[in-house]
């Protein structure tokens, strides 16, 4: 499969890529041991879970698993106002997604340190891939790699909360409806909130338009971040565009089912459930420099010009980073 049409950037020539690789590898090593002590903390807080550190004996793991089972069966666990079940997310949902993240998509994370260690932050990412796997992978990336063990709270489309089972899992994983009220509440509580402002326009765009950022909604995310005074962290995800190459759209069927689009890919729906298997592309998630918003006066959130400018700034940053990452990418699958 051919790469998307990319515009190479002068500041990052191909020749620099090779010199950069070892550097990146070097940067990854100090990051690698970080999640481990954090996991230990997590276990202390939760007083044992099914998934222990590697050094743990089988017996301790069984004991931890039984303690977990006991809490779940008796209902003695906490959820927050949004229905976020931290224990279930950490112990079960993340463990389910992790193989997909580590083994299947082999996600490479860059610039995780751009997410502040405490306080609120709004991560703004591109959206692609027909099914919102990119959001889930972003959540695993922040969960597993951030040195301060932050949890990403994603804002999801209303369709997610209409569908049975999906809405239940989404709420338990800490997602909530993409609306200004919920976003503001989470940001004011000091959470890291993830948003994909392209919405359905981004995730459901045809394969030919891959890596072309769509319009960023009405820029509501900027005013929410401004009101809460939290930094905006632009995030570029490469690799998600090719998991389900959407070459067609069964519009009538979509309308009947109430979905925004009904994708036709080379494998779906021709191969049935087999067509639901995503292509094993190699992903890169790059977090960019945070854009501070606390320097603006209180009334700035109602200034449409400033909103458009900031929205454009975030959008350009993500688009440029996407192009840069695409230039660096050797192939779609490796």
């Amino acid at each position, binding site marked *: 499969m051919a790469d998307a049409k990319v515009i190479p950037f002068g500041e990052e020539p191909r020749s620099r890529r090779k010199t950069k690789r070892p550097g990146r590898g070097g940067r990854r090593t100090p990051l690698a041991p970080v999640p481990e002590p954090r996991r230990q903390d997590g276990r202390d807080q939760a007083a044992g879970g099914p998934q222990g550190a590697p050094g743990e004996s*089988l017996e301790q793991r069984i004991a931890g698993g039984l303690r977990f089972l006991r809490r779940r069966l008796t209902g*003695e666990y906490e959820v927050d106002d949004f229905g976020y079940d931290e224990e279930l997310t950490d112990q079960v949902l993340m463990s389910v997604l992790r193989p997909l993240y580590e083994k299947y998509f082999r996600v490479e994370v860059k610039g995780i340190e751009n997410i502040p260690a405490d306080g609120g932050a709004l991560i703004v990412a591109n959206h692609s891939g027909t099914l919102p796997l990119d959001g889930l992978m972003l959540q695993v990336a922040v969960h597993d790699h951030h040195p301060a063990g932050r949890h990403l709270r994603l804002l999801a489309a*209303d369709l997610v909360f209409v569908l049975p089972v999906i809405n239940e899992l989404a709420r338990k994983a800490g997602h909530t409806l993409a609306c200004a009220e919920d976003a503001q509440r989470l940001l004011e509580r000091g959470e890291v909130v993830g948003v994909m402002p392209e919405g359905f326009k981004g995730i459901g765009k045809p394969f030919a338009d891959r890596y072309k950022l769509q319009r960023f909604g009405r820029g509501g995310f900027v005013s929410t971040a401004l009101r809460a005074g939290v930094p905006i962290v632009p995030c570029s995800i490469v690799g998600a565009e090719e998991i389900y190459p959407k070459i067609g759209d069964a519009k009538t069927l979509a309308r009947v089912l109430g979905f925004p689009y009904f994708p036709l890919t080379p494998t779906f729906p021709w191969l049935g459930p087999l067509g639901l298997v995503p292509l094993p592309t190699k992903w890169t998630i790059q977090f960019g420099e945070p854009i501070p918003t606390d320097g603006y006066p209180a009334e700035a959130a109602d200034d449409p010009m400033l909103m458009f400018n900031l929205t454009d700034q975030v959008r350009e940053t993500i688009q440029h980073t996407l192009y840069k990452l695409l230039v660096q990418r050797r192939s779609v699958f490796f």
Partner: protein
Amino acid sequence: MGKVVLVTGVARQLGGRFVRRIQRDPDVGRVIGVDAVEPEHSLGGAEFLKADIRHPAIARVLAGTNVDTVVHMDINGTPLGGRGSRATVKETNVIGTMQLLGACQKAPNVKRLVVKSSTSVYGSAPRDPAVFTETTPPKSLPSGGFAKDAVEVEGYVRGFARRRPDVAVCVLRFANILGACADSPLAEYFSLPVLPTVLGYDPRLQFVHEDDAIEALCLASGKPRRGTLNSGTFNIAGDGALLLSQCSRRLGRPTLPLFLPTVTWAGTALRSVGVTDFSPEQIRMLTHGRVVQTTQMRETLGFHPKYTTAESFAEFARSRGPGLLPPEVLARTVDRLAAVLPARSGPTQ
């Protein structure tokens, strides 16, 4: 000469408890309880007047007794004691409120009006924000049942507040009230041996303990404390939220997940034969859940509930007795399993 408080809906448990509680208030001189039926419980030293608030007679009661505080608690989802139909309940809620407010408007002595409303005015929809504030406009207004009554009642109360700006009006939107003697449809639901739930949905629920509900009503019917304001609309709920699955596990009652169309259909069928009064809006609440913000309650009203949502529920669970799968038994089973396993798997940390 203390205040004269008129309380409607005293034949209900909550009304009766409130009447007994408000008499202990040092500022209160006289308490008049009003209801269409004689209460079965004692009202302490309060006077009881048998009057139907749906009839204009209520105006004479107000005029003849120099009432200065009206606490309107006769807004309910279910008929009292299984008698009467939904139509009667609706009439009491809506027409009763209209008559009562009309009477208040003509009574120059009335200085304070407290209305017991419900958070069901927000409805429940997947497209609503996760947490409702007092100002959140609902995306889909409740289509019928108690929630619609509450919306209409609040509309009349707003109209009254406009016409009588000298009266301090306080609307308290209570989350689901639970307690030892609560007789709400939700309490009835949680008393079923097996809880039917909607497949694929796990709603977030919020509760407020009876004691807290009484205290909030007392606070709203008295003079505002220093630095607080007790007129306006406030959400009253315990802190935190519980998922329905969590509730069922804590109660020890297994759930029976059913498809949403089945639940709606079964609900309609059961309602039409009169077995239960489980309204569609209640099913919606048990599908999508509802959580409200209580910042206003704490900061403006100055009310701090004694029980969180989880504690209110625990109290309720204790009063209901064990279900089919008591959590203690499950916990013991797991502990026994842990003991059987070869490892020293007691709490190692």
